[in-house]
């Protein structure tokens, strides 16, 4: 930045950089200037005129009041924000703004937290001079998340600019002119974007309000409690608005290093799942096949006895990566004290053959903010906008600033920025990656060497390699592995090639942790090869082995076995074969009741204190905001009591902070490092089949809480109608037409589903979503499917 200059605002000397706007400097100094259209994260529009101030430059006053948001400063400038001239201008603007604004504050959801209301108190007249009729604007339907009252709109265009600049979809606009100007889509279609609800926060009036929480609470009844979002690797900072022990709504909390001022719709509305009708509120015990409500001591005594008597090698612990650090740490401690090392949190991975050489503590590889400054990004196996909306936003910022973005996926993903997409079936992904690595001059031995030797790079591969090498030279190239890579049947091989490519291009390798605590789980030791502090240890069983080895005792923490695991068929099978399944869950579901023998109710999200370690390794601690319903208890307390019942030494924790401090001490010398911990290994047999299923987890199906947030479930997202999505050419080759139904056979499961044409899907692949009820009988998320046969569409029968 160039040299600082000094200007004077309201008689105070302020240091500032040349070219900054007056309002930026004033905000930094804590001098308040009223504004509606200005927002620091959006471009400057200067159309509300509320921030008019009086200014002079070099002793010469500006002839008119100037908008503080759009007037760059210069050395020696003097600004008065409260002078009679400035106040008069601001009052004049206020009067004009109020001309067409309805006086319906008592029935407006924004009442009490409305910027217009606040500023009107400061600058508005007490009696309106406007005697004419006010205009009325027809509402638009923006979908189930955003309620509109467009008559209240003061046309600040913040929402228009948000959609264009941040969301990257120019859907809203200001059409018409003068008094007829209105903000909307003009052609009436729902605003459909994973960050769309941020326009609710941006709207300075009550024109855009949150539909799910509308008319349920007044701003002054709510208490704000800080929280951390549990749905992706970002760990967005939240403000939970609580009334009488209930989360009424969720707003973002500013943190430039994590979520800036935004949150995804998933983080904003997931709280709606808290009051789901199928909350588990009492401990349940299955006796002779019948569920019975029991008290905690009966349930926990029973659990402790079974755990004590179970042979440790015959026991498996599957822990959800959305669990808190404290829960994960205590759970693995319990398991290890019992002599069991079969602990895993990697629920959506099928290829564990690279475990021995995995980095000790994998992470994003850069800080979240640093994503923006990359010059080249290679996204392998990730539908980033669906998986991590706010990381996708950072990547978009990098792309808009000129970075090269490349993607390698089994389907073409929806992006709101330019990108080079390589699309191919899972086996083609491997050969594509090898071709890029070869073009970049990578070398390797064994399978990697063979793949490199047989690769035939196309010009597109060469261009990608060049982009990575150029960025690598300035240390700003990044290769990221996402959750479609994690679920890939040759994940270890993908990793090997990614590391070979990284070495050849001097790029870094990063992992996109799928869940809120995927990174934390390594620190907590919730991994068959890691002790707390991510210290290596001899291997226990991985998720796949736990499910396939017919273990006698299973512990499921925060998991719905038919939805949260990469291979639901084998998960349900494992539960059926086990003698005793202990499920700690916030929800009950038929599948869980079928699978488990005891159900322990635990708190979720805002109901428990805890810590999440986000993608970039930041520890974020939060307090419980509301009590869990009924007899449910925070998870770490359940584990503490269980530890005491098992007579484990040193389990008398006073509070969650003590657990965390104990773990933090163990993690004192842990380093985030994506370098392989040993020479890379992988099973080398390439998974190939005539027809491969590729199953992404839809954005609103990632965890049990989200799946119960109804308004999110009502959103029409891409491929949200369940079915088999095939490339049109693929479908033609199979002799299918668009209205056909097909039978899918995978593992031992079989389902029928409608077939849809979708040219984004790679040839040789069928997209069948994972993590949802409809596909819960199938096997691997990405894997061979046996046959596709034309069947008759089911006729509707039975009662509704």
């Amino acid at each position, binding site marked *: 930045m160039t040299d600082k200059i000094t200007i004077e605002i309201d008689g105070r000397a302020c240091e500032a950089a040349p070219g900054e*706007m007056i309002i930026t400097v004033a905000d930094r100094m804590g001098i308040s200037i009223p504004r509606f259209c200005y927002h620091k*994260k959006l*471009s*400057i529009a200067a159309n509300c005129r509320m921030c008019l101030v009086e200014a002079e430059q070099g002793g010469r006053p500006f002839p008119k009041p100037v908008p503080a948001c759009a007037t760059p400063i210069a050395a020696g400038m003097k600004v008065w924000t409260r002078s009679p001239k400035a106040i008069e201008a601001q009052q004049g603007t206020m009067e004009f703004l109020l001309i067409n604004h309805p006086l319906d504050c008592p029935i407006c959801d924004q009442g009490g937290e409305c910027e217009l209301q606040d500023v009107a108190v400061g600058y508005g007249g007490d009696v309106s001079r406007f005697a004419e009729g006010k205009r009325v604007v027809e509402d638009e339907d923006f979908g189930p998340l955003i309620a509109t009252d467009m008559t209240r709109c003061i046309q600040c265009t913040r929402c228009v600019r948000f959609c*264009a600049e941040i969301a990257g979809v120019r859907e809203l606009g200001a*059409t018409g002119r003068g008094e007829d100007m209105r903000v909307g889509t003009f052609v009436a279609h729902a605003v459909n974007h994973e960050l769309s609800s941020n326009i609710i926060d941006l709207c300075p009036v009550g024109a855009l309000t949150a539909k799910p929480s509308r008319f349920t609470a007044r701003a002054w009844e709510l208490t704000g409690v800080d929280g951390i979002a549990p749905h992706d690797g970002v760990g967005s900072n939240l403000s939970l608005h609580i009334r009488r022990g209930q989360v009424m709504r969720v707003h973002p909390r500013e943190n430039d290093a994590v979520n800036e001022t935004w949150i995804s719709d998933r983080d904003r509305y997931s709280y709606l799942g808290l009051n789901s009708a199928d909350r588990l509120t009492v401990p349940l015990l299955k006796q002779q096949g019948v569920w019975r409500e029991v008290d905690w001591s009966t349930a926990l005594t029973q659990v402790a006895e079974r755990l004590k008597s179970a042979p440790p090698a015959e026991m498996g612990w599957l822990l959800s990566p959305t669990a808190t650090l404290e829960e994960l740490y205590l759970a693995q401690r319990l398991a290890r004290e019992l002599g069991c090392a079969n602990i895993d949190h990697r629920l959506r991975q099928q290829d564990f053959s690279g475990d021995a050489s995995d980095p000790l503590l994998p992470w994003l590889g850069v800080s979240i903010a640093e994503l923006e400054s990359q010059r080249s990004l290679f996204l392998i196996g990730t539908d980033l906008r669906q998986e991590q909306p706010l990381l996708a936003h950072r990547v978009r910022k990098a792309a808009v600033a000129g970075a090269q973005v490349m993607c390698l996926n089994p389907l073409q993903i929806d992006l709101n920025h330019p990108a080079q997409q390589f699309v191919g079936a899972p086996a083609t992904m491997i050969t594509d990656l090898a071709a890029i690595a070869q073009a970049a001059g990578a070398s390797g031995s064994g399978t990697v060497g063979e793949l490199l030797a047989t690769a035939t790079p196309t010009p597109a591969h060469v261009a990608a390699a060049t982009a990575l090498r150029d960025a690598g030279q300035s240390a700003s190239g990044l290769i990221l592995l996402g959750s479609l890579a994690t679920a890939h049947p040759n994940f270890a091989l993908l990793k090997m090639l990614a590391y070979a490519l990284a070495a050849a291009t001097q790029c870094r390798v990063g992992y996109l942790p799928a869940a809120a605590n995927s990174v934390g789980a390594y620190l907590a030791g919730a991994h068959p090869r890691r002790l707390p502090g991510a210290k290596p240890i001899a291997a226990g069983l991985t998720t796949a082995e736990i499910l396939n080895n017919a273990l006698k005792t299973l512990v499921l923490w925060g998991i719905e076995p038919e939805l949260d695991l990469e291979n639901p068929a084998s998960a349900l099978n494992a539960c059926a074969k086990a003698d005793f399944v202990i499920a700690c869950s916030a929800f009950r579901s038929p599948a869980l009741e079928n699978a488990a023998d005891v159900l322990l109710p635990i708190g979720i999200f805002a109901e428990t204190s805890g810590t999440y370690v986000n993608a970039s390794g930041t520890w974020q601690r939060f307090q419980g905001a509301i009590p869990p319903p009924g007899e449910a208890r925070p998870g770490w307390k359940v584990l503490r009591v269980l530890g005491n019942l098992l007579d484990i030494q040193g389990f008398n924790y006073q509070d969650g902070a003590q657990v965390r401090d104990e773990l933090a001490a163990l993690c004192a010398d842990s380093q985030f490092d994506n370098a392989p911990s040993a020479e890379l290994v992988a099973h080398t047999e390439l998974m190939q089949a005539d027809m491969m299923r590729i199953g992404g987890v839809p954005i609103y199906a990632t965890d049990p809480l989200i799946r119960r947030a109804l308004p999110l479930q009502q959103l029409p997202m891409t491929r949200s109608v369940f079915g088999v999505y095939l490339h049109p050419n693929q479908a033609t080759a199979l002799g299918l037409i668009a209205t056909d139904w097909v039978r899918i056979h995978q593992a031992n499961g079989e389902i029928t589903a409608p077939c849809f044409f979708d040219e984004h899907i790679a040839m040789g692949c069928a997209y069948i979503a994972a993590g949802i009820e409809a596909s819960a009988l199938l096997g691997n998320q990405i894997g061979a499917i046996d046959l596709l046969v034309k069947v008759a569409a089911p006729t509707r029968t039975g009662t509704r």
Partner: protein
Amino acid sequence: MSFRNAPLAVTHSCDKSAIFTSEIRAAIDALIAKYPTDWKQSAVMPTLTLVQDANDGWLTTELMNAVAAYLDMPEVSVYEVATFYGMYDLEPQGKHKVCICNSVSCLLRGSDTLLHHVESKYNVHPNEITADGRFTLKEVECLGACCGAPAVMIDKQYYENLSPGSLDKLIDGLE
């Protein structure tokens, strides 16, 4: 964040040679050539005029979408332009457009008399088409012809210093 200095372009992947007729495409390309290469969308206003003239004087949403596709810009940006300016019409029009200036100079020189005259004589109101479909009556903002007020624009031709009688003659001369 400071002012935007790059166009908000949206690449439309449709076949551009299937949009409009070849004559219109050539005319639009000539317009685009007047602007820097990455500012194609600067040509949106003359393009809309061209497209409107080729469609009996009005624009449909489909035509606006086609303009957006051709100029690689977001559809809503085209709607914004087309709804803002009075010279674009989004409803079917008569064979001709009689546009009477309603701004201050013309008003002082009797444009309201002209308007009332046309309204009563041809039984048509602003933004309506005459029963025989001969012309649409429009009331427009300042035509910039204050020195010859009151001014009326018929289709693309300006007529100045008009009286009800001389305007009648002009209207009678319309096909």
